[in-house]
């Protein structure tokens, strides 16, 4: 297990007689790649749940209000302006889930440059 780097947030501290605290972003699995993967999967599932929560609420509200039926949703074709919005949202989702990969690169850059 490695303690990772120390950033601005949770600073590594060793208060009197206490167990030394790990710094920011400790790597807890033997393989850093697997460590990053598990973080990604967890973050991804969170995002998935957030979306599912929203969609369930939305559909229920709309169906209750008699605005739509499930068939309307299935057959919807968005206009171009909306498509752009959807693409932006998609990119933001990918960023949020896959940021761990960039961290691996950043860590490697620091390590390699420090040589």
């Amino acid at each position, binding site marked *: 297990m490695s303690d990772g780097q120390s950033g601005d947030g*949770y600073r590594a*501290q060793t*208060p009197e*007689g*206490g*167990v030394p605290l*790990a710094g920011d972003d400790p790597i807890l*699995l033997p393989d850093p790649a697997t*460590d990053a993967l598990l973080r990604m999967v967890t973050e991804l599932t969170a995002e998935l749940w957030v979306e599912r929560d*929203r969609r369930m609420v939305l559909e229920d509200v709309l169906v209750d209000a008699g605005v739509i039926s499930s068939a309307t949703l299935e057959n919807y074709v968005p206009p171009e302006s909306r498509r752009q919005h959807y693409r932006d949202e998609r990119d933001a989702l990918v960023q949020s889930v896959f940021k761990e990969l960039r961290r691996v690169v950043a860590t490697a850059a620091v390590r390699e440059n420090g040589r």
Partner: protein
Amino acid sequence: MTPEQALIPEASRRADTAYLDFVEGIREFVLNERDGLDHDIDQLFAALEQRRGKAYASYDEVAEVMDRTAVGPLRNRLMRTQQEMQWRRIVATLEPKRAALEAELTSYEERGPGELLLDPAFQTPDYANVHFHLQPGGYHKDTLAGYLYHYSTKVFFRGLNDSDAIHKGAAKPTPVPADGQVNRILDLGCSIGQSTTALKEKFPQAAVWGIDHSAPMLRYAHRRSVSLDIDVNFAQRLAEDNGFPDGHFDLVYSMILFHEIPTRIAEEVVQEVARVLRPGGLFVAHDFVSSNNSTPLQLYHREFDCRYNGEPYAQQFCHSDFQGMMERAGLKLQRRIGDGYGFMNTWWAER
């Protein structure tokens, strides 16, 4: 909705509520007593112990199994990640409300019932300068620390404490001194005052004081007790130097304070408890189970908690001789029970 539930801070966006609800879901996945990951780990060790005919009694022995099987690092990864996710999102969702929440705290300061005594000259001791449970700014640096803490403990307790059920449940069996007199109560390290109000409900005739070193926690505690219309008082004082007169209290209470202070300070706190208790008065402490009563997973988790979850003093406390501290302070241990949601012991001692 209960009055307590109505006071839990609200996220700025539904997506944040859902995200934090997911984090609660991850905790449930790991911690659920009947079919969580931890239940599987408990069973794994039960089977191993059965086979070798001997308990796993030391951290090193447990860690060897946990590391070799990758179970330990995976559990650590998941627990650390959910904690980081939790704080990032709680901070982000409360930030847009910062000005409004600060104004709310100010508007409650002069209101009653109950007093709020803050000490502008207060010096936070070095040992308290820790981001406990990874809370950004720890207990005292962010003016909104009380809001952040309340939201995070909601997630921590997986909804079980939304109406203070855990604090009320712990306060309920609190014993009374032999002469039945309970006129003054002190709650040490009261945080946002959930035990403090639970004690007042249990002993309505008593004057109840909660003390803590953190002004943001106390301001939030006061805001909360005023909203609940419960007459309790809060003061910014140290548990080891509380400023009350000798023999002042019938009951001194602490809930999960001791594992968050170094042993040296714990010794001082117990001495101070003995000083402010009247003869026959009781000290009631709820805190982590000691190491020689721990399950293999508890031994493993405690090390995680210390190293990776901002609990640097928990190991010291769990290896300390708490009963000896009480005896040295002239307190007589009456009873010790281990109930507390699998991780707490309760000590009752008499002055």
